[in-house]
């Protein structure tokens, strides 16, 4: 019998564990054995697994992948960076390139390398690290926790409102062999604090990368986070992301994710509304052309009463692209007076493009207001005709209709400084369709 993928990855860990754990807290490294165990207990899911029908991790991880245990040098070529002024954290293939990359501001804000933060603020970081990520349920998360050496860390202390956005810029590129990377981030917004966070995942060249990414965001009582994410990976890349958001009482999160491009993109997002009176708004937009594949799995857990959630994810697929959305809204037995809305709408531009959508509600409380919906549609020929009758050319009319379709998503960009840029990116992408 061939060595399984899981055996190979476990051996890769075991033969490099000294290097992986070097310079990191002993208790963190000690915990890795449990991740190894959970990874071994739950193998990487294949398409036979209901949840991974549209994204076969066995196939994606198969083949030869290089993995480097030391920081990659900064890529030399010019990159299309986000034009955002902010507290930047730059990571290449999952590592902050320098070892002094931790900034502590006068108001107590801490941001920079997760590795450095673990070394210098061990108690603070480990109080939150791996408290919300699903290491038991998702083998890719356990794998990330096993190999984690660095990442991005953001900490906003009680009552502090960060005046600039934190920009978490993850860049990937190797210029040579196919490479596997682990990307990690931890965002902590304390009681009554406010933070804007912009996350970017971007390929810097055309090389094949497989990125296993985990993000934990924790918003304490009365905290408030605006969280945007912009994904611009190349067509041969695979990005598997796990986003775990944990909200406490009366906190609020406004989120926008735009998956502009990428070979295969898999998103596991879980938003836990774990305190009374939380509000969570999520807007998502994905584009698929050629053979791109986007598979979004979102769960919103209403665990406490009086919480509100809103999720709207839209997609445009053309060529032979595949888009999949699985949304789940769970309302716990005690979560009375929950208000939850979830929708997924898709525009299918070609007969060969495929869309799978599955919104689900799971409600155990009786005093709730929940609704969901999903649509897959084509361009509206009547609207095109109407616009052409006003003198707008056919191509322009099609584009205008697509802009119209994505407009309510991009207009919910939660960062003033990033909205125009997000809109430009979406418009440029539409022009390619």
């Amino acid at each position, binding site marked *: 019998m061939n060595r399984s993928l899981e055996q190979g990855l476990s051996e890769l860990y075991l033969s490099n564990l000294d290097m992986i754990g070097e310079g990191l807290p002993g208790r963190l490294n000690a915990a890795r054995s449990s991740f190894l165990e959970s990874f071994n207990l739950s193998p990487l899911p294949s398409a036979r697994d209901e949840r991974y029908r549209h994204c076969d991790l066995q196939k994606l991880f198969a083949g030869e992948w290089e993995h480097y245990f030391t920081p990659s040098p900064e890529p030399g070529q010019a990159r299309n960076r986000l034009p955002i002024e902010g507290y930047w954290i730059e990571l290449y293939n999952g590592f902050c390139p320098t070892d002094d990359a931790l900034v502590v501001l006068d108001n107590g804000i801490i941001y920079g390398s997760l590795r450095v933060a673990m070394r210098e603020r061990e108690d603070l970081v480990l109080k939150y690290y791996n408290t919300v990520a699903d290491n038991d349920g998702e083998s890719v998360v356990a794998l990330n926790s096993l190999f984690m050496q660095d990442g991005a860390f953001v900490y906003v202390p009680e009552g502090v409102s960060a005046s600039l956005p934190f920009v978490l810029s993850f860049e990937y590129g190797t210029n040579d062999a196919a490479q596997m990377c682990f990307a990690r981030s931890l965002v902590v917004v304390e009681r009554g604090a406010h933070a804007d966070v912009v996350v970017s995942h971007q390929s810097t060249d055309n090389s094949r990368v497989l990125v296993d990414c985990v993000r934990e965001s924790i918003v304490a009582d009365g905290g408030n986070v605006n969280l945007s994410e912009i994904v611009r990976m190349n067509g041969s890349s695979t990005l598997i992301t796990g986003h775990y958001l944990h909200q406490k009482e009366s906190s609020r999160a406004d989120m926008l994710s735009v998956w502009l491009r990428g070979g295969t993109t898999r998103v596991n997002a879980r938003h836990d509304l774990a305190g009374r009176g939380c509000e969570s708004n999520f807007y998502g937009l994905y584009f698929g052309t050629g053979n791109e594949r986007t598979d979004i799995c979102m769960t919103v857990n209403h665990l406490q009463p009086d919480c509100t959630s809103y999720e709207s994810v839209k997609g445009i697929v053309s060529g032979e692209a595949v888009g999949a959305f699985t949304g789940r809204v769970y309302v716990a037995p005690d979560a009375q007076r929950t208000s939850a809305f979830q929708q997924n709408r898709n525009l299918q531009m070609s007969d060969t493009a495929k869309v799978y959508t599955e919104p689900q509600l799971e409600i155990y409380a009786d005093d709730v207001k929940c609704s969901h919906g999903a649509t897959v549609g084509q361009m509206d020929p009547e609207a095109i005709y109407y616009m052409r009758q006003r*003198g707008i050319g*056919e191509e322009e009319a099609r584009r205008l*209709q697509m802009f119209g379709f994505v407009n309510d998503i991009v207009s919910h960009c939660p960062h003033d400084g990033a909205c125009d840029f997000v809109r430009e990116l979406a418009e440029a992408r539409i022009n390619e369709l």
Partner: protein
Amino acid sequence: MLEVKNLHCTVEGKEILRGINLSVRTGEVHAIMGPNGSGKSTFASVLAGNQKYEVTEGEVSFDGMDLLGMSIEDRARAGLFLGFQYPVEIPGVSMANFMKLAVNEQRKYRGLEPLSAGDFLRLMREKSAIVELDSKLTSRAVNEGFSGGEKKKNEIFQMAMLDPKLAILDETDSGLDIDALRIVATGVTKLHRPDNATVVITHYQRLLDYIVPDYVHVLYKGRIIYTGDKSLALKLEEQGYDWLINQYQ
């Protein structure tokens, strides 16, 4: 301005227009009336270039150009405007953006520079007053959530913005209450000039109290079977179409 000769068209193999002849000169107002299913809306759609209809015979010249050989957008840019019976909603596209694009496409066709943002806003304000269109509507998405009356006002507003040579208004009066009808019809009248022309398709004489036609045509089974002056509309209102149809048969 518009010369229609022996126009035939089919939809899904069924012949709807069976030899229409019509001549519209600059400065004229024509009304086209006729029973349901006689082909009035089809005629308007064929002139606008709706691809649902296949022209099988005949020719149409517009301002000396072969209209049937032109794309939908080029017909519009050349000055042909169709007021839709059922205006289409375009979610997410604001009226202002939509109109700006349309106006500037037409200007480009005519070799003019695009309007500046200031000039465009001024034009929007000025023209929306013609049909008493709430300025809030122009910041909303095209026709989305508009009432029936607002949609029709919006058609005339667009007509005012685009200043067409020939406006064809397809049952612009349908679904309007008395006040909205007055506003819409007065708007159309205000836009009429000696150097343009209007064709109104309607079921009701009432509209023609405001928009006084030079000619009234009766369309029946895909042909114009009778042409008269404005008094024809009054007679039709009183007596219906039977006398004409009997005469025709």
